[in-house]
């Protein structure tokens, strides 16, 4: 019987993996993920402007602003956006400047003295320009104005150094359990959430559909008669559940692998190159410096455990419901409550910050089937902690135990039932047996 279980699981898994839909979906996924991780290169390849240098030309009618502006831009660039590339040079007059602006990357700045003998400026471009670049120019011009003004007011070097020094900003939280490290953790998890929760939600949908389709295919073709005459309903049930969970696990690992392949294909640039898109490397390095990365690494395994056992729970429930139906259409109807439950979890997760601190959201975070979808977001907002996740895991284990104990009775009864008549009565009777 053990061999038959292994055979059934292997057969079910291979059937899914050999399926054309799986192959096509993975081809699309690998292209998509490699594409996303190399988007800058792709854009550049097709003539995009990821690496194109902005040509900034300055007409300095004050004869004292150019060097200050250049220095301010170099400093501001480090703060605002590290991905903007530019070259800055001086141009003699406005007429020459205008004649040299021939494309979007040509930017002209005319600096004049204003009424108070400091500076004002005019930015001339070919068309629209990048918002970050505009902010960089605006910030640099403002800084230049301040520096020139300070200089003109004859402030001593010592005082000037003090004025120019960066402001030291300290953080304080009224709530005792809040600290800056946690705030940074929240920032990191805020980026990670769409990467974890949305795919997890889709994996839940995938596992429900997959089990439902496979069991109903065997039922509707009556091949279930042949299968169940050779293996027990229990073996059949667990083989389907294990195969579906293995499949989801394989698919998840493949997605992660595709991501890594994408990063590897970037070559030496690696994560640094990605910073052009999301500033990921900056966040990772700041998190690492604060020791938050270790904390995230500590949270992740337990969240993954919760997700895995929740997937198991969903697959058991889907299997039980599929045994009660006679075709895929009936299953689609019967699965609606599970879909609704997972959607509640999904939307609560997206809106979790709105309910921060409320008891309502905390209670929801313990509810089996919802907990795994909601918990990562609540961890981010600091509503729950490690103990809460462990409690959610324990509750989910209890539900899985009950599903196996009572669900198996329904499965045994339902799997060879081809009539939709008195379905609930039959199920109630099965539970009593």
């Amino acid at each position: 019987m053990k061999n038959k279980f292994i055979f059934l699981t292997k057969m079910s898994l291979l059937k899914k993996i050999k399926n054309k839909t799986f192959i096509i979906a993975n081809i699309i996924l690998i292209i998509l993920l490699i594409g996303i991780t190399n988007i800058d290169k792709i854009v550049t390849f097709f003539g995009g402007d990821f690496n194109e240098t902005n040509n900034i030309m300055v007409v300095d009618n004050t004869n004292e602003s150019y060097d200050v502006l250049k220095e301010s831009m170099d400093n501001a660039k480090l703060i605002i956006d590290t991905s903007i590339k530019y070259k800055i040079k001086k141009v003699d007059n406005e007429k020459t400047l205008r004649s040299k602006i021939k494309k979007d990357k040509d930017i002209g700045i005319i600096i004049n003295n204003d009424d108070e003998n400091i500076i004002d400026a005019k930015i001339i471009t070919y068309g629209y320009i990048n918002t970050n670049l505009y902010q960089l120019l605006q910030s640099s011009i403002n800084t230049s104005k301040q520096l020139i003004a300070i200089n003109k007011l004859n402030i001593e070097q010592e005082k000037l150094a003090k004025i120019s020094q960066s402001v030291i900003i300290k953080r304080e939280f009224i709530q005792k359990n809040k600290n800056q490290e946690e705030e940074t953790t929240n920032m990191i998890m805020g980026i990670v959430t769409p990467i974890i929760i949305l795919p997890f939600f889709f994996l839940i949908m995938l596992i429900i559909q997959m089990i439902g389709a496979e069991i109903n295919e065997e039922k509707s073709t009556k091949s279930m008669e042949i299968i169940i005459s050779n293996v027990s309903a229990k073996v059949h049930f667990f083989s389907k559940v294990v195969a579906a969970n293995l499949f989801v696990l394989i698919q998840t690992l493949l997605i992660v692998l595709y991501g890594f392949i994408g990063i590897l294909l970037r070559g030496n640039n690696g994560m640094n190159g990605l910073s052009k898109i999301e500033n990921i490397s900056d966040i990772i390095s700041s998190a690492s410096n604060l020791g938050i990365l270790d904390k995230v690494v500590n949270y992740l395994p337990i969240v993954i455990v919760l997700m895995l056992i929740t997937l198991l729970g969903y697959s058991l429930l889907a299997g039980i419901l599929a045994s009660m139906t006679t075709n895929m259409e009936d299953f689609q109807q019967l699965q609606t409550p599970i879909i609704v439950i997972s959607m509640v979890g999904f939307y609560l997760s997206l809106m979790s910050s709105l309910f921060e601190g409320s008891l309502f959201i905390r209670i929801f975070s313990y509810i089996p089937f919802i907990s795994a979808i909601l918990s990562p977001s609540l961890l981010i907002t600091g509503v729950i902690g490690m103990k809460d996740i462990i409690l959610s895991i324990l509750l989910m284990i209890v539900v899985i135990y009950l599903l196996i104990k009572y669900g198996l009775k329904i499965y045994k009864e339902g799997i060879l039932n081809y009539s939709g008549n008195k379905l609930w009565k039959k199920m109630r009777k099965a539970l009593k047996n």
Partner: protein
Amino acid sequence: MLKVENVTKYYDDFKAVDNLSFEVNKGEIFGLLGANGAGKTTTFRMIMNLLEPTSGKITLNGQVINYDITDKIGYLTEERSLLLKLTVKELMIYYASLKGMVKEDIENELKKWLKRFKIEEYENKKIKELSKGNKQKIQFISAIIHKPELLILDEPFSGLDPINVDMFIEVINELKENGTMIIFSSHQMNHVELFCEKLMILDHGKTILKGNLKDIKSNYDERKILVKADASKTELKKLKGVKNVLIKGDEIELSIEDKKYVESIFKYITKCKNVTKFEVVELSLHEIFTKEVGVRNEE
């Protein structure tokens, strides 16, 4: 030997099978007949361990049916039980592996049977692409590929043309000769008559007729007389014991209440002109079935 002893099966308050008992020996073909809903499928499901009898016992070679025993049973279901998205080879590997066969043996046996049924080219074709008859062949192969000791055939000739029916009959007889116990069920009584020595007719779960086909037939007093002669239908109807007269081409078919009237009818026919045929025949299984099941349903 398959032994079904006093088996009863209830679905809630509904008695689907009522105190059923029969035996099938090695090399024997047993006919299990009945109208729709008579309890045949429930009986097969109990033999296949898909359902547990409410009472009674089913054993194969002395052992109560369990999942080790079902490996020795082949089951051809009335409705096709094929996974349509699989190829013939994939399906056979799936089903036969569940019977404990290894892949190499399955592939060898499959090739042999596909050749025998003249469908070698379909080995890697998807089941859904096959014709109704070829699907039935695949289903039949899946039931016999593991050389079962007991074979249950529920409507095996469904969807087959006469040439393929003959092919199936040949294989079934071979299996019988090799010692396979076979339970045969069909609504085509001529097929049952063809190779069932023993049979049982069920109606609403109850056994209404059981025994050797020969005995069942000879125990029936009703007979038919086939006559070729210049005789008046009206006159024949007036004869004692004649229930009905049918003209079938150049032949007259008389249904008589009892075989004791044969002699008197023969005497009458001998007086007619141009007598070329006078044959007394037993009722066909079809007629016995219709009579038995029909009468009970009327009751």
